[in-house]
């Protein structure tokens, strides 16, 4: 994860670069920061969000990812891969009730909302970098 390898994306048109940073940050937590040349932040974000998400689905099982509940929209902010987990959970008829489900939903939902915060921050940082480049 060298800054130079991430720096090549900065040569893209401004809108495409911002879009790429936003989408990459959504697909893989921390990827948006890595693309803007901030690998330390990217690693911290990736490991923290993955830890919260994995702990959530370990506590409540992947049945906590249920497309019929409002929590699903928060969970989906972790990554589009969550939609696949919801599909797997539905196909295998997995169920989770009570406290494990509540806590699992809270963990995975909050992990998703934290990722949204990181995506917004990564796009903002990319925008600031673009303006700096233009003013040079």
């Amino acid at each position, binding site marked *: 994860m060298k800054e130079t390898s991430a720096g090549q994306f900065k040569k893209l048109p401004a809108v495409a670069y911002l879009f790429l940073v936003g989408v990459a940050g959504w697909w893989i937590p921390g990827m948006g920061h890595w693309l803007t040349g901030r690998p*330390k*932040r990217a690693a*911290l*974000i990736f490991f*923290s*969000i993955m*830890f*919260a998400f994995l*702990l959530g*689905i*370990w*506590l*409540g*099982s*992947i*049945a906590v990812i249920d497309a019929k509940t409002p929590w699903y929209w928060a969970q989906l902010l972790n990554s589009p891969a969550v939609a696949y987990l919801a599909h797997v959970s539905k196909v*295998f008829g*997995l169920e*989770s*009730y*009570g*406290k*494990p*489900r509540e*806590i*699992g939903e*809270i*963990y995975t939902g*909050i*992990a998703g909302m*934290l990722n949204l*915060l*990181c995506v917004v*921050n990564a796009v903002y940082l990319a925008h600031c970098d673009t303006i700096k480049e233009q003013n040079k």
Partner: protein
Amino acid sequence: MIQIHILANFTSPVYIGSTAKALLLALPLIAVISIVYKAIKLDEIKPADFVKQVLLLFGSILIFMILTAVVIFAVMKICC
């Protein structure tokens, strides 16, 4: 075989009793929130400063949650 064992861990929920110990499950989440928030908020990531800032935020959230719990408990005791 190991992969199946790992996957199996995510297909059935763990047992969490309705005890005071279950409240400890809030701690990892508070830690994650503190780390992610400080990772995007600090201008520069220096290990010593970062850990200090994370611990400060972690402590602040924890103290605020304990105070909130005490206030709610007191209100419940007085009103109910």
